[in-house]
């Protein structure tokens, strides 16, 4: 009896030791030497897209990847000089612009920048756009006809739409507000937001806006275009969707294009390999083909940004009438955040 108990405790200790040893062995150490480097990618982009892009690059070059999903600029800043990150792939322009402004990135090759449509990347060439999303209005045709939709974002606060639209204080919404402040000024932006708050329903996230419009809870909703395509892919195609995507007919902040940005960290020990990866990511015969022609459950209908590239799913970014503007306005969005917080409209 005594021996059995002793044996049990010895066994338990052994199991614990093996487990801890196994755990540390299970995590791949980034290779410091050897023929091909392992690139560490930090990203807050959708995991499937990053996986498809990095897998394709591995197949082509043999370069392996460590991937940190749901990464934040804060994690990189907390890591400081010890950060294992080589490349940062953002979803919205904000985090890329923020890291660039903090001096975290190195300047990129001009040839890489030149592969991408103008005005989508950092004006100082410290991050490059590799994909884009646009702001849209979803609507549910069982509740509102297309001809009755507002023709500009500003019109959504008109009395006839009171209580009929959803919005969400997402990163893209903050970016829209920052854009509005930089164009129409603080006072007009504030009065627009006050009306949005009074007339619309805060559904907290872009995905919830899509779901609630699709389910018929709201007639319209402000969101990003690709959420709709994700849902469409899930239910078996656009024909199975009740709701529809609406782009405002003229150049309008409601059609704002927002880049996903790629940058190389100053602290990276694989500068050359990282630069090669970004060159491929933005090349028309490289990463851009996955955005243009890849399956929708992989690229989610996000727009390719390579010069002359068109998505087989959602068409060309140049067909969407987004204002042309300087994406570095998103490096410091304190004004927009402050405004939203003071109105009680932050997430």
């Amino acid at each position, binding site marked *: 009896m005594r021996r059995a108990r002793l044996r049990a405790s010895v066994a338990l200790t052994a199991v614990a030791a093996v487990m801890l040893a196994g*755990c540390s062995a299970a*995590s791949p150490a980034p290779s410091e030497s050897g023929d091909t480097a392992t690139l560490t990618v930090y990203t807050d982009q959708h995991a499937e897209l990053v996986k498809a892009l990095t897998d394709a690059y591995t197949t082509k070059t043999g370069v392996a990847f460590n991937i940190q999903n749901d990464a934040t600029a804060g994690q990189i800043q907390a890591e400081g000089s010890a950060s294992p990150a080589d490349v940062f792939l953002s979803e919205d322009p904000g985090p890329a612009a923020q890291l660039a402004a903090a001096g975290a990135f190195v300047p990129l090759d001009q040839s890489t920048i030149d592969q991408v449509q103008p005005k989508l990347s950092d004006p100082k060439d410290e991050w490059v756009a590799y994909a884009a999303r646009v702001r849209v209005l979803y609507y549910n045709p069982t509740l509102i006809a297309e001809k009755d939709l507002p023709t500009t974002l500003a019109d959504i606060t008109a009395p006839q739409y009171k209580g009929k639209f959803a919005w969400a204080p997402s990163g893209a919404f*903050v970016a829209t507000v920052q854009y509005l402040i930089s164009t129409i000024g603080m006072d007009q932006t504030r009065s627009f937001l006050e009306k949005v708050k009074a007339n619309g329903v805060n559904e907290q996230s872009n995905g919830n806006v899509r779901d609630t419009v699709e389910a018929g809870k709201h007639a319209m909703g402000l969101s990003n275009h690709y959420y709709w395509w994700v849902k469409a892919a899930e239910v078996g195609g656009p024909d199975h969707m009740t709701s529809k995507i609406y782009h405002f007919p003229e150049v309008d902040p409601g059609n704002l294009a927002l880049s996903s940005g790629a940058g190389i960290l100053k602290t990276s020990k694989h500068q050359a390999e990282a630069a090669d990866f970004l060159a491929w990511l933005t090349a028309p015969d490289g990463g851009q083909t996955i955005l243009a022609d890849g399956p929708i459950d992989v690229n989610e209908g996000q727009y390719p940004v390579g010069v002359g590239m068109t998505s087989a799913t959602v068409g060309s970014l140049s067909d969407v009438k987004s204002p042309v503007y300087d994406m570095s306005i998103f490096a410091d969005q304190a004004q927009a955040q402050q405004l939203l917080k003071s109105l009680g409209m932050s997430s």
Partner: protein
Amino acid sequence: MSRLHGGRVALGTAAAAVAVLSLLPLAYLFIAGFSPHEIGMLFTYPTTIPDIVRTVGLTVAVCAVCLVLGVATALLVVRTTVPLRRTLTVLFALPLAVPGFVSAYAVYSMNLVYAPRLDIVTSFTGATVVMALTLYPYVFLACVVAVRNIDPAQEEAARSLRAQPSAVFFRVTLPQLRVAIAGSLLIIALHVLSEYGAMVQLRQRTLTTTIMAEMLDYGDYASARSLSVLLVSLAVLMLLAGRMVSGRPVPLSVGRQSVRTPTRARLGRARGPVLVLALLVPLAAIGPTVFMTLRGLVMTHRDVFVDWSQVAASGGVTLLYGAGAGLLATAAALPVAWWVSRRPSPWSHVAERSVWLAHAIPNAVLALALVFLATRLVPGLYKTAVLLIIAYVVMFLPLAVSNQQVGLQAAFVRYDEAAASLGHRAWQRLRRVSLPLALPGIATGALLVGLDASKELTATLMLLPFNTQTLATGLWATTNGQSLDFTAAAPYALVLVILGSIPVWLIVRRTLRHVR
């Protein structure tokens, strides 16, 4: 004697070290900086005070519902003649296997699919009910044991003095449950304070969701830290309140063996209806998750491919991390639990309370603190499973400590003294007397830590080794496009709930002894 003294000093030192280690992440808030000015700014926003009020309100409301549900269900299985008591016990404990954010996600999806125009679960009341239904088993499990250990002689004495049944309950029975109730309510309160995923799904802005938004949506870390300081202050208040609820220890009985089986209230003809009513609790708690998971698995219109091998691999990783966390937390908690139950002093109480504090800050802030500290102090451990398991231990240590305390209370000091008088050495006494008696509590603590670790999401996202995923992060990745109908999440939810049922079963199996 001097060896014995040396042993005590070593234990005390180990306990103090564990306490300091678990406070280390909090130190990050001060190292990285937060400013009183920033905290002052927070109060100029119209949302801050409502957020605090809502956070406190949700915490109090969830605790209140858990208290009623937990005590009522425990009394039902231990003190009444309700049929299927053992089955009911298992069912009452089962909601513990479902992570809060999965449960919230499932009820939200169900709400949206079947009643899209109604805000049923996204109101304060809805969120309270959903959260309470996932958390009440903490009270239930603690109270089953405590109710069973009450010496019926005290209640009989009260009845013989012609006290009303309600008076007997409120003045004799309930006070004896105070320790069990206070401990479990504290766990629940801190859970609610730091819950992120479920609150987002249920649309409740709390301090934690605001902190996460500052970090994720706005990249404003100074503001996140300032809000965290507010949240930690709330947690300190809860810890003090916890001390007040538990109060001074009440004598339970002379010893475990002396407790007679209590008389059960005869339900008579009400047995059927009471059973049906009782079954509604677990049905409401796990029904939506089970239903939406099964629905998601049989939905045919989806053309998204389920990679079951990936789901299985995630299951293996989750199991490994959970087991590692359970074992390591057990080792770390023992000196603290031992110190506070065997040598109670102001210092031992400080050590015990400090392991609770880390439980109260949002896991993402804690993870960021560990990122900051690990990359500077132990860079070799960063992005390894070891650091992630250490994070789980820091987060869930209170579960181990509090259950070990219960276990050590069962191993009465006087048994140890009796063994000593028979000439046994300290080590022999520990191994042959105290440990076996304390083992159930220790095991329950380890299982609960493992269970919570396997459900954890936000810190895992940040600290997980590269190119691996757990069930929770796998499920989270499927909500990336924020699915309407739970279909992509279903396989992960299925494995997560099955895996979570194992520790719940192991815990409840021990509890079943008390409901015979």
